[in-house]
């Protein structure tokens, strides 16, 4: 259209006045935002720091001395959490996807698969993770099955996490699959795509994009819960390291170290996913296009 005329246009005096007004408003908004933030957070910090028990609390949870001394052992434990989390995340995605697809299959012949998937998600979503951890970590070895019962404790921890989180992720993916409008399926089938191709090339890509935020939520949660494998005793992950440190010093700073390290992993992951999703234009579909 008349794209070339941009350079010729100069804002009218009225528009310049509006621009100046908006700029003043923006500066004022910024000042108010800064002030309210300082007041609120400053108030919270002041309340905590002035509390009668603060020196004792600080010594127990936020001791710089213990921070430095527990840091390296907790950090080396964290590497175990990262590995457990990565391996479990891949398994969880695969199993969750299979479960979700099984649940959405139509046709009478697939009823057993649908029943299995529904029963599995009902069971593992409902059971406390701690119970599943004990069942896997102490129950499977007690069976004394050749091969399966003689693995390191971290293996059972991973199995328990995978079992539980597959159920969560399956439900998230199923919600995504069912949110894709039926007309998309019809359009794909009308082009001659098989049911499987429709799922693979049309339904799942849209479904997964839609559920990225809740999926990420589950993976952040998985990462935190990877600390729970410490209850199985032998694997020395970040939480277990912190526990050992606390047991010898009666100081909880090591747990705070573990918490801070976990945050260092999850916060960048969240921001990264948001950024990717935004860049790809994955959010905010629906509604009518207007010219």
């Amino acid at each position: 259209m008349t794209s070339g005329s941009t350079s010729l246009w100069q804002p009218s005096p009225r528009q310049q006045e509006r621009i100046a007004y908006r700029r003043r408003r923006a500066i004022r908004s910024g000042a108010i935002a800064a002030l309210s933030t300082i007041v609120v957070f400053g108030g919270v910090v002041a309340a905590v720091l002035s509390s009668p028990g603060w020196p004792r609390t600080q010594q127990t949870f936020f001791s710089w001395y213990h921070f430095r001394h527990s840091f390296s052992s907790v950090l080396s434990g964290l590497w175990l959490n990262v590995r457990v989390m990565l391996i479990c995340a891949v398994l969880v995605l695969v199993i969750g996807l299979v479960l979700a697809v099984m649940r959405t299959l139509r046709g009478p012949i697939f009823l057993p698969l649908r029943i299995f998937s529904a029963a599995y998600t009902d069971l593992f979503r409902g059971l406390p993770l701690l119970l599943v951890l004990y069942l896997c970590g102490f129950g499977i070895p007690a069976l004394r099955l050749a091969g399966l019962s003689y693995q390191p404790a971290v293996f059972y921890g991973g199995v328990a996490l995978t079992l539980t989180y597959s159920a969560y992720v399956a439900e998230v993916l199923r919600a995504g699959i069912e949110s894709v409008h039926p007309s998309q399926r019809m359009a794909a089938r009308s082009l001659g795509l098989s049911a499987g191709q429709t799922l693979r090339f049309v339904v799942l890509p849209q479904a997964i994009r839609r559920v990225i935020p809740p999926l990420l939520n589950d993976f952040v949660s998985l990462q935190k819960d990877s600390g729970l494998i410490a209850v199985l005793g032998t694997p020395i992950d970040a939480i277990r390291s912190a526990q050992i440190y606390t047991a010898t010093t009666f100081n909880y700073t090591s747990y705070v170290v573990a918490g801070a390290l976990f945050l260092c992993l999850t916060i960048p992951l969240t921001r990264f996913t948001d950024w990717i999703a935004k860049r790809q234009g994955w959010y905010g579909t629906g509604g009518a296009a207007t010219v």
Partner: protein
Amino acid sequence: MSLLSIRNLRKAFGQHVVLEDFSLDVEPGECVVLIGASGSGKSTLLRCVNLLETVDDGVVELNGQDITDPRVDADQVRARMGIVFQAFNLFPHLSVLDNITLAPRKVHRQSRAEAERTARQMLERVGLSDKATAKPDELSGGQQQRVAIARALVNSPQLMLLDEVTSALDPELVGEVLDLLAELKADGMTMLLSTHEMSFARQVADKVCFLHGGRLLELGPPEQVLREPAEERTRQFLARIVDAGRL
């Protein structure tokens, strides 16, 4: 005084200038029809008037008040005009009645009983009394669009903006919506609308306004603009419409 006065309006999206030096007056009770090719700026103009877009320069005055002033409360301005979109944009989770009563109840603070009474009158007016409890997806496109018009009318707007309200409808459903708009016009409603229905424009328009490349190229009574256009570009546009069988 004009009800709506647009002067030297400019709107660009990045480098793409959609409206440039655009001026138009709409008198009370007048029906002004915007015509022009897709992308000529009709929708953007309507959205600027409804303050859904911030203008880059120029003035829009409603009853002499500069509504493009950043100090003006946009919600308060919008409450004085109704807009209907091409794609209906009914709220799918609400019944027809709730779609219509949402703004009266939440914005204009009417009681539910009062809002529903007015809404039912409005539904009767658009001929959909029996659909009050239906959900939008149970209605035909024409019915949905009539609900959308009722939803805008229930706020007693001084000005109705209608953006290609029949473009998404099946041909046999266009008539029922256009008939409704003709009735509105007969009742004295001030309207600014964009359409591709030239015969409708000829029937109801007081003025027809031809947009090309974001500028007002020709403005006049429908007999003149649609039958004896002064501008070559208007002639070309109308010829394409005739070829498409829409005149």
